[in-house]
């Protein structure tokens, strides 16, 4: 395999982005399209300027060809993220964020940053959120034991990050737990 050893046991971020692109987003189309059947479902019809809901992958494609404007999801704005950040820094538990917020935010910021209000402030807020949550997940790993690890409200990229570690750690711990009972 060509992937480095550390990520062979888990999914790569690009794959996660692909999976997240299946999410539906709102767009304002600039061209009209009939209801068309795709592999994952039938989408459309697109009638400008009426908003419609299509998957993120299709929205990205249309946006790159300048045929639509993406409406950011309700959580991708300064107020929501600022509120979550203050919650993150004041309480030890993880705040509630959409499961695939990191991937969706990245795709929208890359492709449609002109459709967002204040994209650089959003970028810095996302970075702060990531750092705060990363610190918490490090602490949370100390509570790892052989049977369960409970970190509620962790998001898909973060789970992916610690997955190789805790899989190995848990298997080692399981062996350690079993061994004492298997003694003479």
């Amino acid at each position: 395999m060509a992937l480095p050893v550390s990520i062979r046991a888990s999914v790569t971020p690009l794959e996660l982005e692909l999976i997240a692109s299946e999410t539906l987003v709102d767009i304002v189309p600039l061209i009209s399209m009939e209801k068309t059947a795709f592999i994952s479902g039938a989408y459309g019809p697109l009638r400008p300027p009426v908003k419609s809901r299509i998957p993120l992958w299709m929205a990205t494609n249309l946006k790159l060809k300048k045929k639509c404007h993406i409406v950011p999801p309700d959580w991708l704005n300064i107020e929501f993220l600022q509120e979550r950040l203050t919650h993150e820094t004041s309480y030890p538990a993880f705040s509630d964020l959409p499961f695939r917020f990191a991937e969706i935010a990245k795709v929208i910021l890359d492709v449609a940053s002109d459709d967002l209000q204040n994209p650089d402030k959003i970028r810095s807020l996302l970075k702060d959120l990531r750092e705060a949550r990363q610190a918490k997940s490090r602490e949370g790993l100390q509570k790892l034991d052989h049977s369960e690890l409970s970190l509620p409200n962790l998001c898909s990229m973060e789970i992916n990050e610690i997955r190789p570690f805790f899989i190995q750690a848990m298997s080692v711990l399981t062996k350690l737990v079993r061994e004492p009972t298997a003694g003479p």
Partner: protein
Amino acid sequence: MVYIPPPHLASASRPSYAEAYNDILVSHRRSPQTSASSVILLVAPDVDALCAAKMLADMLQQDDVMHRIIPVSGIAELERMRDELMSYAELHTLMLINMGAILDLPSVEWFGEFSTKLSVHVVDSTRPQNLSSLFGGGENGDRIIVWDDGRAENMQEERKAWEALAYEPEPDSDEDASDDDSEEDKEGEQESDEELGSSPSGKRRMLDNGGREGKRRKLNDEVSRMSRDQRDAYSMRLEQHYVSGTSYGQSASATIYILATVLERVDNDLLWLAILGLTFQYTTSRVSRTDYDKFHSVYYDEVFRLNPRPDANLNPDNISASSPDDLSVRATEELRFMLFRHWTLYDAMYHSSYVAGKLGIWKDRGRKRLTGLLAKMGFSIPQTQQPYTHMDLDLKHQLRSKLDAIAPEYGLVELAYPSFARCYGYRAPPLSAADAVEAAGALLDVAGGVRMELEVEGSRHGGEWFGGGKMWGGGRSEEDRERKNMMRGVNAVDAKRPAEAEDNDEGKEGPEKNEVQWWVKNFWAAYDALSDITLLREALSLSMSLHRAIIRQGSSIIDKQDIRTMRSHRVVVLTQGPDLALFAHPGVLSRLAMWLVEALRDRLPGTAIAKPGRGGRGKKSLPFVVACLDEQAGTYIVVGVMGALDFGDVRKNEFGLAFLDAKERCNARTRHGSFDTSVLEINQEDLKLFLETLCEVGEGY
């Protein structure tokens, strides 16, 4: 051979750019054999064509049309390309960008024999356009579509003349005559200097044919006698059209921008590329100041429409990106110093041809005058030797006002012209349009194929740069560099003989393969740089080296008084010098010629080239012919430029015809390497004779 008018002149019955573009889309979608070679763009190697091609490529990509871009360096290459294209079965659209306007496209020699589903679109800024391409219709003709900028509307006289000479009024007696005449016409249009010769013999032949028909002899004689004067008048008209010299009309990128406007798909990227095309035309003196101003005002409005700014700030130094995503275009004033924001101020003024001419930079006295001017403006010598970005902030702000106040004493007026700059967020400082054009032009001319030495910034510590920089490695691809590294490694380790043999082989093939490919690589390097700001900024230092070389050569020419004055023009022949290999490229040689024109504008009296066939003398101008020896090929590259006497004005370039004429007379072995008819490659031995016959041309027949 139909021309389409620009959208503001279009109507329901006269399709314009948008309809032509939609036709391309429709034929792409309808054809069952569509592949990547269905739509091919042939692009000439200049910055304007590059921008237009990029704009078209972006638009086609957004419409999901697969296309190919092929750079073509000259007419010879175009002929080869045409033969290759004959074999493509799935080709249905061909677009020629900045080439082909002068060619007789419907003729068998070019595209007459292609299948009828092929349509050829010509987006070209060179004038004059070939009249059969514009006016000839018919099944063969309707496939050639020339995207015109509105001037063809005013050519009704030429249209009448061409149609009269191509299609005879009488149907029967002139079946032979019309064939002869249209043949003559086609030949005449391609070698337009022989027009006078062909029309008298055409007349005679027509009279003979008229005489042969027994029954209608009298009628024919009467008709032919009536139209004899008419024919003379018509052929004079056609001749006037072709013989007045080459000039440039609306830039190709402006044409594509108008198309995008009609389709309502403009955005900042397209606008920026259109601005680059216009700036290129102005800085290379292809278009006069009035034309530049006309287009500039259009773009100015567009900039404000697409980039709303709360404060309109004209000071170019105050432009800064407001946010990391800021990719907007701003209107600024540009000074006529070459790349002045990337150099020291002293260097920028030294290397600009306008200042060079007025102050006489090639002499020591002139350089002292330059430092004197800078001192008067309040810039101390250490300040002017600093790179511009490190100069004191208040000096930068004062620069403009001080220049306006003090420069007129030295004769430097009109130092600024309105232009544009683009921000790149926080990735790079804002870049002005003139600088971007310089960088792209340098990449096109010299990115590969010749070794250029660049100055490393900061290594100068004030004072002049005497060389000792690093080599430009940007033109070569990664594989070439790796291969060369591997070769060196193999050589060093062991087995010297096989490695040497391989190296020799590569060396022998190298020049041949590279000879054909260098302009293709340059084209793609410049194309990539247009989308990537880091590549473009790297190319700025390449452009600076190029200018340095031009100044070196130009100053030595003027110093050594190498300019010979002939009756109607001035000649410079370069046979030696450190940069000879560099000047063997036609693009670089043309820049040198333009520099000489600008530098010597005020010091030499203008001459007038007598127009052949017309009695009096034409307008006064500064014709210059520069020839450079290409040692490897054993030929001379000759470039002719026509400088106008007034700054900001342009003259039609008559050297294309003059060269053809001289070549005919002295039977020199020549080759036209590029699309510009005023650039010629001639055998070493024939040069002297050629230059002498060139003098005689100016006196008329």
